């Protein structure tokens, strides 16, 4: 009965556009997500991350473009959707539901649900089972979504801003459980967040959305350490940066620094020889400076 493809890629998006009246939330977006990897869907608040995830899970309807999840359109497609779990950050729950009601009903909807794992996670996050959802703190609400996402073992699982309101211990719990469970039960994970440094080490691949467009789509490994900042006298920095892609420039009097998109080992040696100081750029810094072209450092500040 099902013709779902278990051949990679898990997700293929082509020319996806979503307009709300005159506002274009998602603008001609195309990307692939290959199976059994952890993808980061990164970008500032309002960049279009949640809209993209709603479109991928059939919760919203595309204005134009195509989406294929395991080879089929997700819209009203029960065969696709039962392999997908997406508890969004702003998920609404039925009136007067307690945490217990949520965890009693969620297993009915996910074929791979692991009840023992869910119970362990509920204890790890110290979720109060008898408390009403509307009385939960922001962090506890995030934890409910995280536990459903992890315990669902859905072949395609989304985590939407999982860190929102979580304290340091809970963040570590999520990080540890996600990695441990991922290695035992590989699946495709799409993790959306604006807190990039928090997740940088878990991600296999990074897709950065800004203003509804994809501005970066690359292996996390390739991005880590690819960029670099050189600093020194203005003349030396300008001379070295000439002909290279400069993401960001700073200057104070005769001193200057420039963040360069790629800085190979040979480049680093050359810079050092030219009397420049070379420092590495974190994934977050790289993305901040990529997106800062539109406006400045909100991403950095909110992180």
């Amino acid at each position, binding site marked *: *009965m*099902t013709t*779902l493809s*278990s*051949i*990679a890629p*898990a997700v293929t998006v082509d020319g996806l556009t979503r307009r709300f009246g005159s506002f274009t939330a998602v603008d001609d977006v195309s990307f692939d997500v*290959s*199976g*059994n*990897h952890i993808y980061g869907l990164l970008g500032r608040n309002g960049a279009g991350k*949640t809209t993209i995830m*709603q479109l991928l*899970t*059939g*919760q*919203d*309807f595309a204005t134009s473009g195509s989406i294929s999840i*395991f080879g089929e359109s997700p819209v*009203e*497609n*029960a*065969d696709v*959707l*039962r*392999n*997908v*779990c*997406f*508890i*969004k*950050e*702003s*998920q*609404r*729950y*039925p*009136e*007067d*539901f*307690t945490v217990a*009601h949520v965890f*009693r*009903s*969620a297993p*009915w*909807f*996910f*074929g*791979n649900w692991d009840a023992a794992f869910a119970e362990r996670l509920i204890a790890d996050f110290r979720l109060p089972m008898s408390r009403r959802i509307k009385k939960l703190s922001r962090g506890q609400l995030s934890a409910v979504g995280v536990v459903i996402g992890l315990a669902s*073992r*859905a*072949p395609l699982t989304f985590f939407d801003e999982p860190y929102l309101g979580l304290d340091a211990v809970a963040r570590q719990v999520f990080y540890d459980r996600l990695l441990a469970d991922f290695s035992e*039960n*590989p*699946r*495709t994970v799409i993790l959306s967040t604006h807190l990039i440094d928090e997740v940088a080490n878990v991600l296999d691949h990074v897709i950065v959305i800004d203003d509804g467009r994809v501005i970066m789509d690359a292996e996390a490994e390739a991005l880590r350490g690819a960029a670099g900042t050189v600093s020194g006298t203005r003349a030396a920095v300008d001379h070295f940066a000439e002909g290279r892609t400069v993401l960001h420039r700073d200057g104070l009097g005769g001193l200057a620094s420039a963040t360069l998109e790629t800085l190979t080992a040979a480049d680093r040696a050359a810079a050092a020889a030219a009397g420049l100081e070379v420092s590495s750029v974190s994934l977050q810094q790289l993305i901040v400076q990529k997106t800062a072209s539109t406006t400045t450092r909100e991403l950095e500040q909110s992180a």
Partner: protein
Amino acid sequence: MSAITHGATLGAHPVSAGHRVWRVVRLNLVNTRTVFVVPAIVMGSILLVNAAIWYIITATTSGTDRVDAMTGTQYSGGSFYIFVFMLVIGVQVVTATFPFALGLSATRRDFALGSGLTFVLLAAVYSIAFAALSLVERATGGWFLGGHLFTSLYFGANVGQRLLVVFFGLLFCFFVGAMGGTLFMRWRATGVMLGGAALAVVVLGALAAVSFSDSWGAVGRSLLAAGPLGIATWLLVPIAVCSIAGFTVLRRATPKS
């Protein structure tokens, strides 16, 4: 590096259409407190308050005054609460349970079918309970005080009529509530306002048609002739309209953040 197959097996557990719809029914009923306990407690309290009033009347009046007063309780609207409550449940099924069902990867079609089935089951349970209570009321001579709550005239003359009138009435409330909730889910407040305006136009048109054709007398006579059950059966028309229109509107509805 790139793996070919998905570790978590796709479609590991085949799910039949019936099962997919049934789990939506279970989701709608999982909070038994809201669906069963609260309405039962409130209905019990209404009965107690009414009984207290009947007792006061019985204790402080006599003769024809008492008979008049207790006969008057046949027009009691105390049990209308249950209809209002179910209207609110109908609204909430769409405004709150629908977004959660989508979060649990249900399709809109399965959600609509499951919720319609939930409404039929709830209306059946409550109309049977209502009819049973009306039998108790009759058997105890109005809870030993001569009062009426479940045997009010509006619900028909016998237990069979009451069963059907309450069943259709509750179903009407569920579907109208869900229709309102669906208009809100699809087009927010604008949808509810335009839906209300459309309803007002239809009602005004009907009133105008009756008035201009000078047929109020005929309408009154046919309503009397139809009786409570006849009128309640006509509710099947708005129920059908709401279920078809509601499903059509819900198919493109999206929960907003």
